[in-house]
């Protein structure tokens, strides 16, 4: 396999993964938004309260609305506002899933340098996903 063929194979895998992921995540976001704004699922923070809160900084909002940060939202995922976070998390996870698939391809084709770069990228993303950085930078 020459360089162009290897690039085409890696690109095709990545494109398929990104296309499916983006479609699924955006469909989930639409359904969740309808459930939220229609009142089908009652929100944790009442919609009428939001104009009093959304001009606050993030730190002030978290304290005033008594909402969790980090992965604390999972416990509230059944509420109308927090159910939207499932779609957001899906959307933000697509890249790491596609990179995992690309990593497998690089390893299969014996492209060790790109396998190492893809593995490093996955590690960086997982660090962000872990929430371990949450205490850095204030807020």
């Amino acid at each position, binding site marked *: 396999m020459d360089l162009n063929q290897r690039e085409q194979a890696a690109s095709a895998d990545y494109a398929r993964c990104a296309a499916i992921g983006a479609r699924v995540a955006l469909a989930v976001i639409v359904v969740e938004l309808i459930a939220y704004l229609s009142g089908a699922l009652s929100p944790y923070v009442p919609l009428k309260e939001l104009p009093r809160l959304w*001009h606050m900084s993030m730190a002030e909002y978290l304290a005033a609305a008594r909402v969790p940060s980090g992965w604390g939202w999972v416990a509230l995922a059944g509420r109308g506002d927090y159910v939207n976070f499932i779609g957001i998390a899906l959307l933000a996870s697509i890249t790491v899933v596609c990179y995992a698939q690309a990593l497998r391809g690089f390893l299969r084709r014996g492209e060790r340098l790109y396998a190492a770069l893809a593995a490093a990228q996955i590690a960086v993303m997982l660090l962000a996903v872990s929430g371990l950085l949450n205490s850095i930078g204030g807020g």
Partner: protein
Amino acid sequence: MHAANTAAIAWWIWPLALFFVTFLLGIVAVIAGVGGGVLFVPIVGSFFPFHLDFVRGAGVLLALAGALAAAPRLLRDGLANLRLAIPVSLAGSLFSIAGALASFAVPTHALETSLGVLILLITGLMLLSPSARAHAPGSDPLAAALGLHGSYTDPASGERTSWHAGRVVPGLLAFSAIGFVGGLFGLGAGWANVPAFNLLMGVPLKLAAGTSGLVISVVNAPAAWVYFLKGSMLPVIVAPSLLGVMLGAQAGARLFRVMPARQIRFAVIALLLFAGVRVLLKGLGLWT
């Protein structure tokens, strides 16, 4: 916009207005050839009552969604190159996380002031015409080791173009700085990625523009997680904006052939100029 002036307005007006505004932004972003995120943050940050923390959180996700939606087509058409994107995205990702974390330690007025200055700089960059031809870089052993060369066929002209990227280390430094700025302000960074690829690394403009979208979809993902887990994403802002920009981008793609792109590009530049001045004056406390 002052909180006291907006509290009397029914809550549902704002997500509805946000949907319409982001729908229009989605249309003009496609026609003017700019990313939705770079329009969203200054415009919504200036004219809506939401705190900049939540606007930046939505902005980073908006740029990510737009780039993810475009990436598959660009990759299939050969106009985005995964091999070119991977090394610079790694550098950009590390610094986008740093930028996102740093943004919460910076006072809001300082962030607004620097965002205003940045938007005015971007407006200036947009007035300059990009170079269709790449400046050929000299030989670069790192580029050779990474296999940063190839060829692509332009679907519009059918012309096959060979390319060789170079100056990888300066490129990595540039993408680190761009990642930091993107993470700091919640912007997509197509306005900076394309010149970095094209003018610095010698990548042809079309491939630079396509690969820039792919880079945004990687670099913005860890930054989005930082904003998300910090708590700066409000569904009432994020969800209508995502829908508005997506639907607007689809409408924009249809209107692309019939709309006067040049005039719309100048209208966008004027709008960005106004939003940049507005957010700068807001940061300086001269227009609250």
